């Protein structure tokens, strides 16, 4: 059976199964377990309504528990065992990892990524959002800057590999250097330390559109009166932007910033396709992939380090969500 046919069959079974489950479980609940008749139908209806939410939630909770909650525990547990998984070594994986040069490089680079990418993407996004705000062709411009969001990290890496190519007749960077009189082409991906920034720019290129869309909506939401008042008081456009608009959308800026930060901690594709982690460009996700299938103990230890870095953002998000619901 070809995979595609298998896929279609799965869609039918999956969708049919879901609908069937929800329909039948509700039917059984209402007609068999707590029927709205007999001695005290009111009590039965109330009981049925107490159970029903959990019927609706069960498949989702099962999948979430298995695919996202269990792995947090499972990964931590696995990271306490050795490579083969048969010997408990406590924090041995973490100890060897922290003394490994590769890990230290990855951690340092990841720190750079977290510092640079969210800041740059938010900055460019805000810039474009503000500049295109009153522009007649602003929507077209936004659409084009938003486009990289649809491109895979692998595709984007290829696009930029071409720009960075080590040949003045292929790569734009080297063509520009050639134009300004450089003699030899330069492989920018092999220039230690700075190559990280060339990789980061790819992610900035992708994420600027995301920042732009959200910040653009936030800018539109600013009450006109505040801006009018500032202009009447003689504020110049820069003052209006920095002193009136930016403070009012600070909350959104923080959300965009943290969302991109989380993404930065997960993306391994760019480093993997561009340099394979060579030339000192390793970051934690790609470092983890280099141990995946080879040393599960070490791989899970790296994953858990990523989890710990993400944790503060997670807690902050939950607090925000809870504050909103009140």
């Amino acid at each position, binding site marked *: 059976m070809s995979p595609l046919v298998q896929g279609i069959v799965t869609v039918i079974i999956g969708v049919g199964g879901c609908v069937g489950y929800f329909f039948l479980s509700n039917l059984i609940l209402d007609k068999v377990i707590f029927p709205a008749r007999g001695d005290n139908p009111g009590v039965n209806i109330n009981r049925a309504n107490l159970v029903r939410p959990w019927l609706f939630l069960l498949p989702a909770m099962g999948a*979430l528990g298995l695919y996202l909650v269990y792995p947090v525990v499972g990964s931590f547990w696995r990271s306490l065992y050795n490579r083969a998984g048969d010997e408990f070594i406590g924090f041995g994986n973490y100890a060897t990892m922290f003394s490994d040069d590769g890990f230290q490089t990855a951690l340092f680079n990841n720190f750079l990524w977290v510092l640079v990418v969210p800041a740059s993407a938010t900055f460019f996004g805000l810039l474009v959002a503000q500049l295109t705000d009153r522009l007649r062709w602003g929507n077209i411009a936004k659409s084009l800057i938003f486009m990289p969001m649809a491109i895979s990290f692998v595709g984007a890496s290829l696009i*930029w590999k071409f720009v960075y190519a080590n040949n003045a007749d292929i790569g734009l960077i080297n063509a520009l250097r050639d134009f300004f009189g450089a003699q030899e082409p330069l492989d920018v991906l092999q220039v230690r330390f700075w190559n990280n920034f060339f990789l980061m720019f790819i992610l900035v290129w992708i994420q600027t559109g995301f920042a732009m869309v959200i910040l653009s909506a936030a800018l539109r939401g600013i009450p006109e009166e505040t801006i*009018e008042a500032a202009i009447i008081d003689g504020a110049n456009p820069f003052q209006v932007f920095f002193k009136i608009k930016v403070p009012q959308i600070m909350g959104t800026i923080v959300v965009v910033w943290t969302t991109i930060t989380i993404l930065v901690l997960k993306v391994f594709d760019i480093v993997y396709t561009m340099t394979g982690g060579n030339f000192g460009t390793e970051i934690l996700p790609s470092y983890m992939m280099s141990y995946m299938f080879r040393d599960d103990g070490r791989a899970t230890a790296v994953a858990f380090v990523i989890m710990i870095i993400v944790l503060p953002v997670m807690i902050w998000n939950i607090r925000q969500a809870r504050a909103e619901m009140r």
Partner: protein
Amino acid sequence: MDNIAGTKSSLSWAVNISVILLVVIWLIPTVGLLVSSFRDRDQISASGWWLSPFAVEQNFQAKIPAGEVKQDGDFFVIEGNIFSGGEGEVIRFGGARSNPTANAAGETAELTRDRSLTVQTNGDFVYRSPKEIKRDPSVYYSTATPPEFSLDNYRTILFSNNMDIAFINTLTVTIPATIIPILIAAFAAYALAWMDFAGRGLLIAIVVGLLVVPLQLALVPLLQFHNKIGIGQSFLGIWMAHTGFGLPLAIYLLRNYMVGLPRDIIESAKVDGATDFQVFTKIVLPLSFPALASFAIFQFLWTWNDLLVAKVFLPSNSESWVMTVKIADDLLGSRGGDWGILAGAAFISIAVPLIVFFTMQRYLVRGLLAGSVK
């Protein structure tokens, strides 16, 4: 707003120019790859894609057959045309490998040992040597090759590189992985939005927290789990994995949207005796279409573009490669220098997401806003 007190003209020029500049910077890399995907390998390495509308100077080497030698006084002479019947335009030529473009067309090149070589623009040449010519002499020349665009790269990549299989595999992974989580999430989102029960707030908080759990954590334990229950690395495994990983965002997006639906409609339906199941299927689900579409687009783009999950949960043999894996693990290695092929492959893989993106941008934007501003 900005035109108060005549500040408009100079500033609006600056704004227009900077936006144009930014758009160009953002667009150029993609355009470069697109243009290159239509050029052949030799043209790509001969001139930059930004020069592709112009003729390319390419170097060639021709052997002059020594058999046609004639004697002219003390000299041995070969005459003929280096294009041997074909057409072309010689720009420069030379008689030595060390300097293949030493002379302009029409000049006479003085070679070592008193030999000389003349090549005209149309390819006619005269080779003179004081000694008998035993070996076929070589002529090096450069011609202007007119720009050429073709679909050859796409043909090669699709039909002889198995990119077609990878394309179908990507499609196979994407469709169930997009549709199934929507249904599961919709029911859960309804419960979290419109049903009252103890622990609802806690569950919502958990969903929000799970939004940011790094996928990396899930890889090892779940692969072990799949191996244990006998699924192993397979399509079924990746569908389940994508479903699980997509659920937090789906539930979060849909719940945010459903909470905003007018309370009156739902309550009057309940007063009229509709059960929760009926309220959900007949009222909430149809009204939530925009949110469902938003999530579907997200999940589609994410599963289509994913490399990590596919690398871990699909078998590593070439029949099950999806396009991203195929490009990253196969083409970049085996075809590393063949830019035409790589560009073609990249465009095959990003064509569908781009179409989805440009046709359904409205829903995507709405989803982004619902997913993060709230």
